[in-house]
């Protein structure tokens, strides 16, 4: 008798509080992160859009009250010839950096597969060193190496008879200055991309490559038709991330030009910063930032779509 009654009594008593707890527990665990990310990333993103629709200068900052101007800021920015220059320049810079980074990193990753073990450890350690170097530190190093008077680059180029680079100032000519910036950014970006691509290469079964070679494929063909397609997801992620990072570049040009870059060295991020904090036009700066996000979304949409397509196939 007792036994018959006991189980139904016991069951709800033991599971109901447990059920209640597990139902609310995950939400309790997630709430802190939602609060932080929502409050400090999502809310400012909304505020950015709202701000871009206001005239918001120093007076408005003190009064905590902007003047609604609708799309006025966007109108002003879109007819500004400097904005066109800056956006084209930033896109070209991004393209050059991403292309060079991915090509060079892939070559180094393929090389890593072929070198002996000791050399692989040496190359890997050098990559880790560069990876761990803070951006500001690396900018200072390159600034010193490209110094017009005592920089080692000018000395080496003169010694190698590339030309007379004694007292050559790389930043007089913006095209040369931007080339230096590409070198700085690509040097810093190679470790992450190389290590990621190398990790991907390790997952390509070697019998597939061997089979292709038995069938008469040369090194380029076996890379093009066997290895590269298998690495596609990794390439997509790496290109997408590099595009986001390089398009928003701020530190390298800003610090390399001693925190006073001329308009020739504006990237879109520096331009937005200058409009907001340099001439205290926060509304205008915010609208530039919004346009920057929009361009970025358009550029990266392609990669995201391709990645989703791959995910659906698998």
């Amino acid at each position, binding site marked *: 008798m007792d036994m018959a009654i006991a189980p139904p009594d016991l069951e709800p008593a033991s599971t109901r509080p447990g059920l209640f707890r597990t*139902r609310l527990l*995950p*939400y309790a*665990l*997630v709430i*802190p*992160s*939602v609060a*932080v*990310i929502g409050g*400090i*990333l999502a*809310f400012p*993103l909304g*505020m*950015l859009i709202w*701000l871009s629709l206001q005239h918001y200068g120093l007076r408005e900052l003190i009064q*905590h009250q902007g003047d609604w101007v609708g799309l006025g800021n966007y109108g002003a920015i879109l007819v500004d010839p400097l904005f066109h220059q800056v956006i084209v320049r930033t896109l070209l810079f991004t393209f050059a950096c991403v292309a060079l980074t991915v090509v060079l990193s892939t070559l180094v990753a393929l*090389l*890593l597969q072929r*070198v*002996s073990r000791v*050399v692989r450890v040496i*190359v890997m350690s*050098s990559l*880790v*060193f*560069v990876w*761990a170097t*803070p*951006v*500001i*530190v*690396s*900018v*200072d190093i390159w600034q*010193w*190496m490209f*110094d017009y008077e*005592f920089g*080692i680059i000018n*000395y080496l180029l003169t010694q190698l008879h590339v030309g007379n680079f*004694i007292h050559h100032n790389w930043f007089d000519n913006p095209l040369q200055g931007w080339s230096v910036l590409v070198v700085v950014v690509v*040097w810093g970006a190679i470790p992450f991309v190389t290590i990621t691509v190398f990790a991907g290469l390790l997952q390509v079964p070697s019998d597939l490559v061997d089979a292709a070679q038995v069938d008469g494929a040369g090194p380029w063909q076996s890379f093009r038709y066997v290895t590269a397609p298998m690495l596609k997801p990794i390439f997509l992620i790496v290109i997408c991330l590099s595009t*986001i990072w390089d398009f*928003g570049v*701020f*530190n390298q040009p800003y610090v390399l030009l001693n*925190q*006073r870059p001329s308009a020739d060295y504006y990237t879109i*991020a520096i331009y*937005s*910063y200058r409009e907001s*904090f340099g001439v205290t036009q*926060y509304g205008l*700066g*915010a609208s530039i*930032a*919004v346009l920057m996000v929009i361009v*970025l979304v358009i550029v990266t949409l392609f990669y995201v779509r391709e990645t989703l397509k791959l995910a659906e196939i698998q």
Partner: protein
Amino acid sequence: MIAREAAQGVRAGRVRAATRTAAAATRSWRRVRQLAYDVTGLAVAVVMLFPIYWMVATAFKPGVDILRLEPKWFPNPITFQNFQDAIERPFFLDDVRNSLVIVGVMLVLALLIAFLAAVATARFGFKGRNAYLVMIIGVQMVPLNALIIPLYLMLDRVGQTDALAGVIAVYLAVVLPFMVWTLRGFVANIPAELEESAMIDGCTRVGAFFRITFPLVGPGLVATAIFGFIQAWNEYIVAYVLLSSPNNQTLTVWLASFTTNHGPQWGPLMAAATLTGLPVVAFFLVLQRYLAGGLTAGAVKG
């Protein structure tokens, strides 16, 4: 008969000799190719490392050896004067302390919050879980540079500009999404059966969690801590915009202002750069095993 056998023997010998020389040729060609690969690899390592070597070498050179048209490849004699100059610069020690406080407080909070969220998404199915994960991934796409203006105005309104708390909050939000994502992979990798069997053996749910899951997640916590450390230690623009007074700034802001305030004094600047990079490189080198394994574990397993 004998002649034929002899002829065959000679022919076979010739064929064998031919294959032997061919094999030797392939082998030596392979050796040459391997040598070429290794030399190229070493050249890559030299090119990548040279800027870092040049920073350290310059930091140890006396001023007269730095400002030479024909550079000295090795620091000889060695001096520590540049390091002393860098450390004695105003606000160096203040800014080291600020960097340590910001990174330390941020890491403790981030690991705690990220771990809770990782457990929730790896161990429980709940309504809104997918939406949450999509948010975690999507938020990483937003460039931080674009948010500087509203962040500044928002923190300005609550009086947290030029205060470490504001910077800590921003860094926390920046590193959290990646940390949650990576830790989630680690927690998901630990079979829930382990916890269940501990509970059968008499552990409470919380007890099983702390005795079984928590120790196994250790490497994941280390990996994400390294990531957070590097992100926060190296960050520049947020600290530059938010922290205005020199005794409140971080080490990267101090380093970036080195040249503008005093003109390029390369020796002390390179010494300062070496000091700024040192903690990160040390942290990274000691724990990189965890990082490499950790990143892939977090990314691959779902």
